[in-house]
């Protein structure tokens, strides 16, 4: 069966078809914690089913557990990716990301199993090399025996959320390290770009503004924040609202700039927003408000709002993996039935003649 893989700065998520009419998601945090072997009894780790590796005298705790341990031992967590990509300077953490990907993706069930992997588009505001990252992730999945295809994260959002609109519209993924945006017309991307800001940026800014530790900010943001409440000036929540707003404004300004460089077809473009950072309560309403103020050079029919309930496939965080899965399944079906392709060829000829 085909699979979809979302390799993000914060989460690595795999989607595959479950039993019956269902999708099964496997998720791990893209993080690890380095510790001295002496700090921990290994059989304790084993019996607690902690994911770790040992190399000489260091133990690396992987994934979700790394977060728990970092709180207990008060040690900073290490993250193999930054601003959406594996950076060429972080080569030592590649084995860790490899293990996490292996863990989430699992072994292929058959030869040449198709997997679609989401990768960021080129950022407009930073010079990072997206290609290096994409090739690394692709090579890791290939080594497991998969047939890999890459897909822009924004397009994955379009595939997952804008099926009712013939895959025409704007897909936005507001993740941890990045925000990815794709404007698509009938499943074909017209503009695809990314912005090197996301949830991490908000955390960093709020942390340096309030002096509260970064991890603490993340926790408050994820569990105790909503746009609709009034917060005191100077509180963490107040700062969060401020920087969230700055991020949204920045995203829309860049979208506007990019749109002015192309001539999109005259159609209605609904917007779908996904990614973990869009989980915040009231985010979509806020986004909709800023969009309506921005006066974009494109006909935005609406901002699509999902009722998000925790652990639902409508969870915006899973939306990217789901989009990748849709792409993979479609590809698989297409290879199964070759007829539509021929038809397309014919049509193409008809148009060119």
């Amino acid at each position, binding site marked *: 069966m085909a699979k979809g893989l979302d390799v993000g700065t914060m989460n690595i998520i795999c989607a595959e078809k479950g039993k019956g009419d269902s999708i099964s998601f496997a998720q791990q945090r893209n993080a690890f914690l380095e510790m001295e072997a002496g700090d921990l009894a290994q059989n304790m780790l*084993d019996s607690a089913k*902690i994911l*770790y590796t040992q190399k000489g005298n260091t133990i690396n705790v992987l994934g979700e557990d790394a977060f728990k341990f970092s709180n207990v031992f008060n040690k900073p967590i290490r993250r193999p990716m930054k601003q959406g990509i594996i950076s060429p300077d972080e*080569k030592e953490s*590649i084995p860790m990301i*490899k293990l996490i990907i292996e863990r989430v993706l699992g072994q292929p069930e058959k030869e040449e199993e198709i997997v679609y992997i989401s990768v960021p588009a080129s950022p407009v505001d930073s010079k990072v090399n997206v290609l290096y990252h994409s090739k690394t992730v692709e090579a890791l999945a290939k080594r497991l025996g998969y047939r890999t295809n890459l897909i822009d994260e924004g397009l994955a959002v379009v595939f997952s959320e804008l099926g009712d609109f013939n895959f025409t519209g704007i897909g936005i993924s507001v993740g941890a390290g990045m925000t990815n945006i794709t404007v698509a017309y009938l499943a074909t991307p017209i503009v695809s770009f990314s912005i090197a800001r996301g949830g991490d940026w908000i955390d960093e800014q709020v942390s340096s503004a309030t002096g509260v530790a970064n991890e603490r900010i993340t926790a408050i943001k994820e569990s105790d924040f909503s746009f609709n409440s009034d917060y005191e000036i100077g509180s963490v929540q107040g700062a969060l609202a401020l920087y969230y707003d700055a991020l949204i404004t920045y995203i829309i300004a860049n979208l506007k700039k990019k749109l002015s460089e192309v001539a999109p077809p005259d159609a209605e473009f609904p917007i779908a927003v996904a990614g973990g950072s869009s989980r915040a309560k009231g985010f979509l309403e806020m986004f909709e408000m800023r969009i309506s103020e921005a006066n974009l050079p494109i006909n935005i029919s609406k901002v699509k709002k999902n009722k998000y309930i925790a652990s639902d496939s409508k969870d915006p965080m899973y939306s990217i993996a789901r989009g990748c899965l*849709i792409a993979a399944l479609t590809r698989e079906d297409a290879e199964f039935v070759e007829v539509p392709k021929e038809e397309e060829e014919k049509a193409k000829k008809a148009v060119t003649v």
Partner: protein
Amino acid sequence: MESKLRYYFGSMVFLSGLILSISAIGFAIMVHLRRTSDPSEIITTYGILGVGLSFILMGINLMVSQRRPYGLYSNWVMIFGFLSSIFGVGLFAAFYTDNWVYPNVSYVSFAYASGICLLSGNAFGNAVLKLIEERSRQLVDTNIINQYSVEDIEKEVEKTLNESFSETTRFSAFSLGIKEENPVFIPGKALKDSTQNKIEVKDSIREVECLQNTISGKVKVNDYGIDLTTKMLSETMKKHTEAQNQSLSDKLKIKLNSMRR
């Protein structure tokens, strides 16, 4: 640092030129200068005005001047132009009234005009060069990443991946009894034995069929022919702009290289 000093010096010269010219005009107004005025008044006015103008141009030259490789010529042009215009003013002061007749007049005007032309031409040239260089620097900067081809990157990735898991040792074919330097990451028990938690959610994934239809052009609501044309058009447009960008930056690079030489 040196260029900053030069810039500072240039702006001082420019400013003093400006003050000279303004004071010359002020002087002319004060003494009600006209054709029949006293020669000394005429000499003072035009002398100061002429020197002021040369100073202004000299200051601009100093401010926009280039360092290597054209800096050398441009420096000579600047100095020559400045001296020639000052010389012209000096000649004028010496010849005026008594010897202000045919050949001398043309000597004076030639010296002064050529000096001013050299100075202003040089300033203009330098400013344009500076502009071009700034542009191309921006282009080159953004293209640094693109210098690597896809194959380069693939090779680099392959190398990095091989190195980062030291399972692939080069001695593996025949063990020479050499103990491996970096030990392999030994996976913990849970990593090998336990299975990954999965969340299963109800979802019929209707989108797969829709996507199939959209991609193959079987969408009912839209005009199929038009849609396909649009698709092909957007492809062509993308390729076209890419090619255009490429050729533009290539041209600039070539130009820049030939200039450097």
